[in-house]
């Protein structure tokens, strides 16, 4: 199953962050190895409207506090997914991303300025060849998402819905639960 996918947690609508503050935070994380993986670099795309914002590049995952689709949030692009199955890999990426998000929310330099919505995330298939933006591909992938979501949101009723978007965009699926969920709870 797929090795290429992304996830994205949206920021709470009230988020009002001076993005420049993320630059020293991410540099410090690289220096202090605050998150797992081979940490490589910080990239500043603040000048690009609806762009990737500030990125933290790792060997395994590209993280970004970004504005794609006009929605600000934390995205993670898996480059070398960890896990035996697609579901395992998804759980792993979501947990890594939540760990990143929880760490950011807790950083005093942006205290109170960043709050992510833990009760839902986008799954974005980053493989147009094997997972095109079609109902068939959605059907093929849905079972894996259900399995993964049962781990991520243990004991909660999960909704999995295909996002209606431009057919040329990537297959995007919203995975959500009704009640609020802290990023820290997912990361655990």
């Amino acid at each position, binding site marked *: 199953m797929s090795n290429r996918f992304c996830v994205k947690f949206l920021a709470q609508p009230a988020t009002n962050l001076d993005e420049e503050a993320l630059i020293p935070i991410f540099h410090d994380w690289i220096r202090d190895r605050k998150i797992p993986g081979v940490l490589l670099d910080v990239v500043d795309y603040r000048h690009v409207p609806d762009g990737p914002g500030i990125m933290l590049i790792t060997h395994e995952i590209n993280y970004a506090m970004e504005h794609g689709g006009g929605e600000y949030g934390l995205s993670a*692009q898996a480059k070398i997914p960890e896990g035996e199955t697609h579901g395992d890999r998804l759980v792993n990426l979501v947990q890594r991303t939540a760990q990143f998000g929880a760490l950011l929310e807790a950083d005093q330099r942006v205290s109170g300025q960043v709050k992510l919505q833990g009760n839902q995330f986008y799954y974005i298939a980053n493989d147009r060849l094997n997972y095109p933006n079609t109902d068939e591909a959605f059907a093929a992938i849905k079972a894996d998402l259900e399995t993964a979501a049962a781990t991520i949101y243990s004991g909660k009723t999960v909704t999995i819905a295909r996002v209606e978007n431009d057919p040329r965009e990537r297959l995007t699926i919203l995975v959500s639960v009704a009640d609020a969920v802290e990023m820290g709870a997912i990361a655990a």
Partner: protein
Amino acid sequence: MKGFDSGLLIKSLVALAHPQKSMPSETRTWKAALADQIPPHMAEEIDTFESQMELRVQDKLEEKVFAELRLRRGAYGQRYDNGFRDNGRESVEIPFPNKHLTKGPGTKWEAPGMQRIKIPYGGMTAEQMNVLADIAEEYSDSILHITTRQDIQLHFLSMVDIPDMHRRLAAVGITVREACGNSVRNVTACPLAGVCRDETFDVTGYANETAQYFLGHRDVQDFGRKFKVAFSGCKQHPCGLTYMHDLGLIATEREVDGQKQYGFEMYVGGGLGAVPHLAKLFDEFVSPEELLPLSQAIARVFARLGEKQNRNKARIKFLVAKLGIEEFRRLVIEERAAIEADPEWTSWLGKIPEYEEGGLPEPLTQGAAPDLGDEAATFDYWKATNVYAQRQAGFNAITIALPLGDITASQTRLLADVVRRFTHDTIRTTVEQNVMIRWVHDADLPALFLALKAINLHAPGAQTIIDIAACPGTDTCKLGISSSRGLAGELRRRLAHKAMQYDEAVRNIRIKVSGCFNSCSQHTVAEIGFYGSNRLLSGRRVPHFHLILGGKWDHNAAEYGQSLGVVPSKRVPDVVELLVDWFMRDRQGEEAFPAFVNRIGKKAIKEQVKPLTTVPAYEEDPSFYVDWADAREYTLGDIGIGECAGEVVTLTDFGVATAESAHFDATLLLEGDSQNGNVQQAQDKAFESMAKAAQALLKLQNIDISDDPDAIVADFRTYFYDTELFFDPFAKGKFASYFLKAYESRSDTATLDSAKQLIEEARLFIEASHECYGRMAEKGITSPVSFKKWLLDNELAKA
């Protein structure tokens, strides 16, 4: 090679990353999916490269050979790919899982890399844009970066994805072949070609056919360095930048026996780089029939006689300078006569009319122009800065200003839709890192503006002071010294606030920022240019930029500027503000900025800038010691706090400063009227500045070093050249050789060209002296005693 199974490589690499896993066998591959859509020769090239990757992974292909093969397919390394990164405190090894694997000498296989994608004459189709968007999302960071040579670059790529990316590009007619390497690079052309009001004729077809002819041609495979070709439709505008290219063609016409003939003025030997050269006129009229054979003859002479061993002297500009244009011309004409005729020299001429474009027969919004509402004022400003009325009445070319040349994958895809809706698929990249939509009806401008606004591509200010070009610099480039993109982003933010207040003369100022002296942003020909540098102050590195003034962007980049010295990075916005405010306040009549600079004089400008060149102590303001868009304390390596503030160091600092002053005097001697009789004096002064810099360094070996140039050169050769102490980690002995060569030829009669060249070389030599001084401090060489110890250690190490 043809039958190589691409899946093998992917499996090998996946196995390297995850020894416990294997790729699922049911996964479809792009190789299979696109088998019918890729021209066979392109498919074979990609398969071959994929097999070479496999051989490299198995260590069956030498890393330096693989590096050249990789580069010839546009796949570059990126910053930190040597496996180390400075975190602001120390250099730390990056723990890549397979550190032993390399993709070139000192280049880790698993380190992210960059792909350059050639876009001949900047022409793209909507279909190609869609594929570019897809690969940027799937393999890169969702950003497409337009370069100053109309290419597109993607960053943070994994080697494993390169072959499939090439296949997807090939399926829509895009090749990456020779996007890098010592061959013919992307052939650029004025983006207004075919619609320009001032062009002699449309050069589009000629540019593309030249690109196709030389792609993979046997006569362009043995160059010592790259070869860049540019076409322009006219002489007066900067769009083609023909004077700064290895081969520049400007459309021209003449009348013979009452018959009008079209052809090209051909220029050769131009180039920016570390030492800029303006191209020389090779032939004032080259017919279309002779365009390719003559270009081929030039390529053959370059391949045969151009420098091969010393990369730093291997561009054709050095060959032309060495031989002189007359001798070079004679050799090329001789070569031309000897080449066997090739039908492909002219077989394409009949296709030229096919390059002609047109607009939609009727406006899309005929009779139904949208209401701009609150956007009316922005629309007017956008129309004033971004819209060019084409030669064809009723049609317009619209420049979309991309911040720092960046556009997202989603924007690219939606822009492709806009292009399809409003035009016949007519969009081009520009050398100012923008894109241009051509053939838009007057009546469609409001609707187009709103369509662009919907995708956030409606920013006004294209090709103005806020439309700043920047090379990748320290963001991703291995050679970057200072953060060019960080600075450009900051300048853009600050200038944008005032942009509406600026009149046309201010708007027309171009700012370009390079991260090092290599001119990738074309800073040398900007009205205000900057390139990255650094200074060591009290044991700490401080990011700086050289301020370059006097460049001429107009007339195809007809003049390059000179450095007025360095400014701390964090003070550059203040310097720009000072210059712009001064220009607004004191300019005379319709005076343009370059004329203003010439009238005021660089000396007076330098005086005004001087207060902005100071750097506060670290304890007073540490922000000066951190580069733009970064948070780490600035370093070029693991320097830390040194103990180098002794007397001798002060003397060396002083000596290098004297050298800089002498260099500035040399530039002043050529200011204004270049034929002012000061040419010899300028050249002598440039040499003097080099000698002063060398003497300053020698004070660390012998505090009593003589003022006699003979003694300085002799000791410099002994202690700095022969020991390689002066050698730059990347350029090696290049900068030292400038000094030694200048000494050997110091009694030669100066010409304007030789004086200009020596001034540029002196600038680089002085800069290298700063670097050498910094490296010596790092090695603990701060006095004659420590110098002697280092010499002994060095000799022992070699023994």
